[in-house]
């Protein structure tokens, strides 16, 4: 197998590099690349559309010229054997030089010439400027990156496996660019003074702000947003954990008949846009809410605005996040080995003693886990506080108002985001470092015979009462959503109408085709399109990462894992703010485009894909990969022909969940939407702010049903795939 010809991957990336440099427009295009206006508008000589080669040919943007040298280097590697040290050396040199230079010039030179004063003092005024990188720049940058990884592979890293080294390099590059870089940029923004210098005192002034840390509420005034958020998150964490535990106990340890209905609860948070619960609560308990009106009629009291503030947000978040706690705890409660409990019973403990001394202590790490999840979710939640918060300031909404409100204070937004990030990361870290080692629920392959004992009666009755009561409340809330969407004007004119649906989703059939005349169609199609583009990319990035984490070992793997899972703990508002700060200026200038939405979804939802991938990949025996390798397939072919086909259910799940999550997301999105790319959720929030509840609720209901269909379709498809799998796996893995 001593092939003389250069590997096709190498040829591909060399060509890609040259194409990016010589043929594609180097800079970002105003009208977008895909409109292809640029092709007929003076290309390739017009400065705005010109490829890099034509630019320097005309004596402009000469700082792009050194890239030419870096692009030429790998040509000398073409004739050499892979084992030749020069082959690796040339590629590493070319890749590192090209990639490094691209980054350096990108950050060094911006829209106002040199970005740093010391550069200007050294070289004098540049007299030129550059905008964000376009497709040309991006493809050339990728080419340099993958030339570098091929060089590193040829040096013998990871057994010289080009695919694995490139995958690691690629994931590190994009996670750095779209998670770490924006966060770092945001952290710096917290120290920037009005005239652009860095100063600690600016940070201190914004950090030790009374609006952030004030403790006035102890004396009857208002508290700072940080305390509010913390207090709310702790309460939500506690309450959702208790409720989730009740539900889990009812499902696993009671004679309750309609367990399936309760299990169906778990699908709710997946399909519900986060602020919808808040809307439904307004319909019930708002000033003109059903319950409010009923109570005030009954007792003759004046309706109050008690809902707007802490109580409303607390109820809404509890409703929204209890199913998540339930989902976590059901695994924990089922994971307690029945034989432990049976052993306790044979040792003469009664059911109550068994529960108190064995079952509950074994569940403890799971309970802590559920609490931390509820805590993180509450901290990060943006929709409900926005709709119901009133004067109750929390960090996530304060960040938003700092950026979009009259104050427009990037530094304050950055400081608030840092505080929020500190809270969620601490919880995330606690969850991993402390709970990671403490899980008692080890599910071994051995069948654990036995059944869970029922709860003792003294416990069963209150638990059932709480769980069923809350389930009923949840049902009422969701019924309200549907009902509210067909009411003319809530509390004023309660006649039934489809008016809101018509306003939102009317269509006209005309000679030239369908005209989408409804007000919501624009944002609806944008949402579907963006979510549909983001979903496969999310799944791909997630699965490749999962493959690297489960199947490969390399130096720094733990840090790699932590980095990729980190975006789970970064609240959407923080992502939103940091993206605005980072991608508003070259070298990556994508605010206001659809691309930034797609990218934010990929990195917000990546942990979903990674987890799905890890879960199913660890089920596949490693000897399958190994036998494929010994049969002459390389690791890319193994990944494509053995692992991917066996992962079909995981891929499907990752696809659908990232699609659905992209449709329900609001916190990051609301910072990133533009007039051209408005998303459903931010459109709905806009309606709410205009008190147009009817339309907002009708639109939300539609979204819920769209996503219910998607999830249902997934369950149907995955169910079938799994049956197919079982028949074809059976004997292959038993024995």
């Amino acid at each position, binding site marked *: *197998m001593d092939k003389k010809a250069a590997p096709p991957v190498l040829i591909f990336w060399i060509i890609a590099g040259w194409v990016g440099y010589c043929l594609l427009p180097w800079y970002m295009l105003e009208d977008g690349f895909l409109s292809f206006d640029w092709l007929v508008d003076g290309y390739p000589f017009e400065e705005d559309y010109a490829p890099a080669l034509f630019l320097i040919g005309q004596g402009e943007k000469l700082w792009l010229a050194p890239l030419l040298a870096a692009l030429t280097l790998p040509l000398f590697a073409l004739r050499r054997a892979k084992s030749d040290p020069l082959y690796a050396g040339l590629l590493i040199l070319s890749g590192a030089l090209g990639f490094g230079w691209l980054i350096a010039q990108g950050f060094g030179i911006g829209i106002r010439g040199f970005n740093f004063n010391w550069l200007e003092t050294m070289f004098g005024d540049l007299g030129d400027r550059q905008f964000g990188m376009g497709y040309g720049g991006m493809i050339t940058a990728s080419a340099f990156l993958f030339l570098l990884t091929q060089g590193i592979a040829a040096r*013998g890293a990871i*057994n*010289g*496996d080009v695919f694995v080294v490139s995958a690691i390099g690629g994931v590190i590059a994009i996670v750095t660019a779209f998670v770490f870089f924006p966060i770092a940029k945001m952290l710096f923004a917290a120290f920037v003074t009005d005239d652009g210098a860095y100063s600690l005192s600016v940070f201190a002034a914004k950090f030790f702000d009374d609006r952030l840390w004030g403790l006035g509420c102890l004396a009857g005034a208002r508290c700072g947003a940080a305390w509010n958020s913390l207090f709310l998150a702790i309460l939500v964490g506690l309450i959702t954990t208790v409720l989730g535990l009740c539900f889990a106990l009812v499902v696993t340890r009671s004679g309750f008949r309609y367990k399936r209905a309760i299990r169906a609860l778990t699908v709710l948070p997946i399909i519900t846009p986060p602020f919808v619960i808040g809307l439904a609560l307004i319909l019930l308990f708002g000033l003109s809410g059903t319950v409010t009106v009923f109570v005030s009629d009954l007792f003759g009291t004046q309706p109050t605005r008690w809902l707007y503030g802490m109580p409303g947000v607390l109820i809404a978040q509890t409703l929204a996040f209890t199913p998540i706690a339930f989902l976590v705890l059901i695994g924990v409660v089922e994971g307690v080995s029945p034989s432990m409990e049976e052993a306790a019973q044979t040792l003469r403990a009664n059911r109550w003693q068994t529960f108190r001394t064995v079952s509950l202590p074994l569940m403890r790490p799971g309970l802590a886990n559920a609490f931390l999840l509820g805590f993180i979710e509450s901290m990060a939640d943006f929709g409900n506080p926005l709709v119901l918060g009133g004067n109750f300031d929390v960090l996530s909404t304060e960040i938003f108002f700092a950026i979009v409100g009259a104050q427009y204070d990037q530094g304050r937004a950055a400081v608030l985001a840092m505080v929020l990030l500190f809270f969620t990361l601490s919880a995330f870290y606690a969850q991993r470092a402390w709970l990671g080692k403490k899980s008692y629920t080890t599910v071994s392959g051995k069948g654990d015979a036995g059944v869970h004992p029922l709860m003792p009666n003294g416990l069963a009755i209150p638990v059932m009462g709480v769980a069923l009561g809350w389930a009923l409340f949840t049902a009422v809330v969701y019924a309200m959503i549907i009902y509210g969407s067909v009411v003319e004007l809530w509390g004023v004119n309660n006649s039934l109408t489809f008016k809101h649906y018509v306003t939102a989703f009317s269509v006209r059939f005309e000679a030239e085709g369908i005209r989408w005349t409804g007000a919501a169609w624009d944002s609806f199609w944008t949402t579907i399109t963006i979510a549909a583009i983001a979903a496969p990319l999310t799944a791909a990035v997630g699965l490749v990462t999962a493959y690297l984490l489960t199947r490969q070992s390399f130096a720094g793997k733990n840090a790699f894992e932590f980095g990729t899972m980190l975006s789970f703990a970064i609240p959407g508002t923080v992502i939103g703010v940091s993206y605005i700060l980072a991608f508003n200026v070259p070298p990556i200038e994508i605010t206001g485009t659809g691309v930034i939405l797609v990218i934010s979804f990929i990195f917000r939802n990546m942990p979903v894909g990674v987890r799905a991938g890890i879960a199913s990949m660890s089920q596949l*025996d490693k*000897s*399958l990969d*190994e*036998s*494929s*390798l*010994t*049969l*002459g*397939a*390389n*690791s890319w*072919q193994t990944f494509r*022909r*053995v692992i991917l*086909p*066996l992962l079909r259910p995981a891929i499907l799940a990752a696809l659908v969940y990232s699609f659905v999550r992209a449709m329900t997301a609001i916190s990051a999105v609301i910072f990133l939407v533009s007039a051209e790319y408005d998303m459903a959720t931010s459109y709905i929030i806009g309606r709410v702010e205009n008190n147009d509840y009817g339309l907002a609720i009708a639109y939300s209901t539609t979204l819920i049903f769209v996503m219910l269909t998607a999830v249902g379709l997934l369950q149907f498809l995955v169910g079938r795939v799994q049956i197919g*799998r079982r*028949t*074809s*796996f*059976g*004997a*292959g*893995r038993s*024995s």
Partner: protein
Amino acid sequence: MSDTVISSKAAPVRFEGVSKVFGKDVIAVDNIDLHVQAGRLVTLLGPSGCGKTTTLRMIAGLEMASSGRILIGDRDVTKLPATDRDVSMVFQSYALFPHMSVLENVMYGLTFSGFAKEEARNRALTGLELVGLKGFDTRLPSELSGGQQQRVAVARALVLEPQVLLFDEPLSNLDAKLRRQVREDIRAIQQDLGLTVVYVTHDQEEALAVSDEIVVMRNAAIAQIGTPRALYDAPNDRFVADFIGEANLIACEIVSVAGELATIEIENYQHTLPARGLPPGPATLAVRPSRILTGGATGVEATVDKATYVGVRMEYTLTGAFGQVFAVEDNVDTPFEIGTTLRMSFAEKGPVLLPNAP
């Protein structure tokens, strides 16, 4: 059906001072030298954790040697990944791809070796015929029995005409009856095609039955290399003697050495046997159970502790001042009663002298 012929490109394998260290200080294989001749079936045998599977995986390229050189044929493959080595492996779990039919499984490797589709297909069918699975090509692996799956795995590896074919405990998932048959099939194919095979097992009987040569491993190192007969008849040390077949180890005293022959003494009973280079002094005598003679006029005094009738022979446990030994006797018609005191001596051929524990 097709005139495709599967032949072999058998090549020798050579290890030169190869070590494998996992993590910082877990030594799985410690500086071993090994030469597997082309066309031979060599077994790596040893208790679990002795490094035999790691050695095999280093030949495959699934583990990379930490130091030393590995050559296949005259090519240095030390740094080559599995994909680029001309080696195939049959896994303990077979590792058939569950989503591909039997034929697709067997064709899998061929499609990466530059065969045209039609030729790959013919080769795969020939391979299946060779392992006696003609007509099973459209089945899924799950529709085959364990033994059939095993043979698909062998066919899949064979059709690539690898320089070396590796087996990782291929019989451990089969029931006892099938084991003997599959073992014989593997040996027959290996001899017909003249393949170089490296075979890992922890079952000494299996190793004795299939091998041209056995490499006994212990604690990450090679304890002894030899033909099955040499290992059985002339083990180097107590470990090998005990691991290959059963051996009774009895302390003895070499009283004199004359040329090649040594005279030993156990409780005043003297026996003469090859000295194997040992000087006079304390040593260990290794005797197979079948080489212990009972009921003679001379010998070491022993008492029958247990007597078990197993059909074809009698099995005795004898105790005495030397300790305890296990002996078998073909005479089933007039067995010794438990408690009988008798004289125990040793057959002329068979017993070997071992140095006392290093």
